[in-house]
């Protein structure tokens, strides 16, 4: 058997990983082959050198410190544990401060759907004075007419005190004969 076929087993033998059933065969070859003995010695030396590779203690200490710092930032301090709740409370407070006055100043403005585009265009400059729901009054004298088709949708316009914010609400009207 050539030496190359022993290499794999010699590599295992050098590290003590060869199954017991193969040890005698490899040792017999090593006794008669100087090159393979040299190979086994080199493999053992490499194994020893692997174990001697240094590890700086400063690196270990840095990791230790970094891990504990990361854990401390995450949640262990009382402030850390309450941080999400505090953030939520702050967000709610901010939302209340920003939106409460506008919501309070909402004015309802109803216009006929046919005038929707005009109302939208005019809303930027429109005063916040409520407009009367003209559409309903316009059809009052037809209220008792039988089987009349449903009227056009009613456009309700909410004008806030911010000229850039206008809210439109389309409302389906009941059939005129009801």
């Amino acid at each position: 058997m050539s030496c190359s076929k022993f290499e794999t087993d010699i590599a295992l033998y050098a590290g003590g990983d060869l199954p017991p059933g193969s040890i005698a065969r490899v040792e017999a070859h090593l006794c008669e082959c100087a090159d393979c003995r040299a190979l086994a010695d080199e493999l053992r030396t490499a194994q020893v050198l692997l174990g001697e590779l240094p590890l700086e203690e400063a690196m270990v200490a840095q990791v230790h410190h970094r891990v504990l710092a990361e854990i401390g930032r995450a949640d262990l301090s009382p402030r850390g544990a309450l941080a999400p709740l505090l953030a939520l409370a702050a967000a709610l407070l901010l939302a209340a401060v920003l939106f409460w006055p506008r919501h309070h100043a909402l004015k309802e403005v109803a216009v006929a759907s046919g005038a929707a585009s005009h109302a939208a265009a005019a809303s930027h400059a429109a005063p916040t004075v409520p407009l009367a729901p003209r559409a309903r009054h316009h059809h009052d004298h037809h209220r008792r007419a039988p089987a009349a088709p449903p009227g056009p949708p009613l456009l309700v316009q909410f004008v806030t005190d911010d000229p850039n914010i206008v809210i439109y609400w389309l409302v389906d009207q009941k059939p005129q004969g009801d």
Partner: protein
Amino acid sequence: MTAYAREKPGELAAFERIMSQCERRVLRVALRLLNNPQDAQDAAQEVFLRLYKNFGNLNEERGYEPWLYRVTVNVCHDIARGRRHSVGLEEVPEPQAPQPDAYSGAERAQQRELIRRGLSRLGGKERAALVLRDVEGLSTGEVARILGSSENTVRSQISTARLKLRDFTARLVRRRS
């Protein structure tokens, strides 16, 4: 609550104790697998944060080492995969052959440097198997369980890795002489 939520008092002290016992091993494996101190520290940090996160769920009787080794190998694998796009292990420049030195200590240090560089040339699975077996001294069966392989596969990887490492160093030594 955060991902690191704790329930049992005293767990931090127990965690610190385990970390102190295992941090050298975790960092050493990470350093041998990644061959880069900064990456190895990042990996070790990630491993221990995962340990902390799962501390209450781990079976203490079975020991933390197998779990730590497994996570270390996985984290290093992820880091190496991300790094491969920038500086692949195969792209590490060929090292210069060491010069003969009159002092045996310095010569030994040069031999260790050759081994370190040779280790970085190995494939990921071979390197992991070799590091766990020859650096950490785990048995073939323990290595197999950590890597999720059979013992025969691990033996094959270890044998191949040892021969490659020996060939790499022998080639450089021949070039020197």
